[in-house]
């Protein structure tokens, strides 16, 4: 794109795509913004009077909102800690040469291909069920006693399920980062007198910093909008214990038929996601600079 001519030509070529994308984004967003200012209830769709910011006021002052916000952040943080920590450990393991490593690598990636609803149902009915679930049976056998996950620790249960689904992603990205670490660097550190732990801390971990950042950023985007796992396991309960913002928006719109309130909630969710993204990029974004 050196000359003026190629620049304008490039603009013309890109225009259709850009315009299509713009419409694709603008139309739903402006419709949401528009609905969020209406008293629009599906019980009475004929009358949708303009009510200004009342929907926002109701949504933000709803005690359920703060709970949902807290749950959302706890879910994101919990899953991030497990997947990044576990991903680093698994990547270190899979980077070793041992018999059958290719098959193990394949198995580790497998959860990523299981649909969220299926994964959640499998965990709910086959793993975490206190009577016949595998975990309950195991805990009974050990002598701790089965836990009724979805009544006693529902959010933890959801975090475990979602972390299980995202662990392969983290592992895969971190493994490729690990494999690009030059052997000579490790050997140089070894000759410099660094033990295995020092090599991990001073050489391996800084080398993986960029990959860890990518994992955190991408996962945060997806984890802010977790819905299916909650829907098929706890339906946001018991009480509000597993209701996050997306689930709260859903329950506004389709359980309480309040389209206006749900739209306001959707806009709030977008704003919140941007706030989180802003702080994340401030916090760890410098790792992405070359």
């Amino acid at each position: 794109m050196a000359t003026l001519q190629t620049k304008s030509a490039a603009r013309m070529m890109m225009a259709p795509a850009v315009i299509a994308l713009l419409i694709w984004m603008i139309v739903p967003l402006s419709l949401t913004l528009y609905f969020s200012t209406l008293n629009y209830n599906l019980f009475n769709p004929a009358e949708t009077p303009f009510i200004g910011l009342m929907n926002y006021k109701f949504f933000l002052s709803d005690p359920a909102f703060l709970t949902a916000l807290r749950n959302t952040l706890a879910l994101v943080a919990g899953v991030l800690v497990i997947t990044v920590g576990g991903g680093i450990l698994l990547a270190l393991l899979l980077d070793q040469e041992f018999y059958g490593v290719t098959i193990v690598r394949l198995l580790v990636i497998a959860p990523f291909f299981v649909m969220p609803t299926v994964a959640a149902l499998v965990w709910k009915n086959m793993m975490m069920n206190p009577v016949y679930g595998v975990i309950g049976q195991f805990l009974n056998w050990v002598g701790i006693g089965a836990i009724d996950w979805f009544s006693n620790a529902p959010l933890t249960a959801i975090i475990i399920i979602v972390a299980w689904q995202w662990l392969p992603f983290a592992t895969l990205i971190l493994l490729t980062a690990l494999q690009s670490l030059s052997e000579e660097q490790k050997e140089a550190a070894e000759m410099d007198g660094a033990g295995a732990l020092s090599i991990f801390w001073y050489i391996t971990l800084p080398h993986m910093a960029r990959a860890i950042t990518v994992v955190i950023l991408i996962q945060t985007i997806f984890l802010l909008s977790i819905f299916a796992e909650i829907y098929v396991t706890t339906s946001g309960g018991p009480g509000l214990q597993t209701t996050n913002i997306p689930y709260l928006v859903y329950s506004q719109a389709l359980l309480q038929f309040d389209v206006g309130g749900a739209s306001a909630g959707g806009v709030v969710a977008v704003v919140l996601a941007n706030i989180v993204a802003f702080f994340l990029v401030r916090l760890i974004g410098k790792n992405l600079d070359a």
Partner: protein
Amino acid sequence: MGNITLDKVSKSFGATNVIQSVDLDIEDGEFVVFVGPSGCGKSTLLRLIAGLEDVTSGRIMIDGTDATGLAPAKRRLSMVFQSYALYPHMSVRQNIAFPLKMAGDDRAVIDRKVGDAARILNLTDYLDRKPRQLSGGQRQRVAIGRAIVREPEAFLFDEPLSNLDAALRVNMRLEISELHQQLKTTMIYVTHDQVEAMTMADKIVVLSAGRIEQVGSPLDLYKRPANRFVAGFIGSPKMNFVEGSEAGRYGAAVIGIRPEHLAISTTEGAWRGTVGVSEQLGSDTFLHVHVDGIDTITARTGGEVVLDHGDTVFLTPQPDKIHKFDAQGMAIR
């Protein structure tokens, strides 16, 4: 102090024997160069000494004690890698300080030693840069700095100059030799460049296919090569080898004569031939002469020659500079 002894050291990767029963004595303070063609096992031998590879059999003694099973860090050796292997996320200062930090030295000692090393290597202005902000030669010096702060028993260099351009290579060659004069520490230096070997070494070890062909001072190897391989490897351009009846006249299976030991004449001499390609370097000219009944012979002469492609010349070997080899390629003295 820094004397290293290899006792029947062998190394095999699976079924291939890469190093075959090598015996070698390296005195304290010596500058030893391992030289040999690509794939002959120079790097492997160096890595065995460093402890980065385990020996298959044999013993390695460092400073009088058996170091065969010792971890690399315990051998008190420093290594400079061909790719430098600097830590990219650390500044130059942190790179050089890393071995001291691992040894648990305190801040004041580390600062002083890093400062000293930076001064010796002209790196003081670059201490806060990252490796990627340095030129190749500067990176090389950082790698050397990281090696010298530990005050090791010996330095190991694996082709440290091969990534540099020709002019810088000559410079760094001098700097490393200068460093050796200053520190008087044992250095083992791997290269496949025989000019580096000749100019830097106190002692050259010529390797071929995992065996030591000859050990000696540069001039020793130049004047008295033990066999045909060493004769051909040391010296540039290569020694000329003549087989057959011409060699038989000297009572040998093969005779060798270096290009610089041939007298050139346009009128008379022992071997008659026609001039092929001539390479003019300014100070020297290398003539490739197609000698009748023998082969192409390279001859060195001064800067100005008036010979053209196709001219007839006569070459005469200096009788006392002829190397004689038997059918097995061993020198006949």
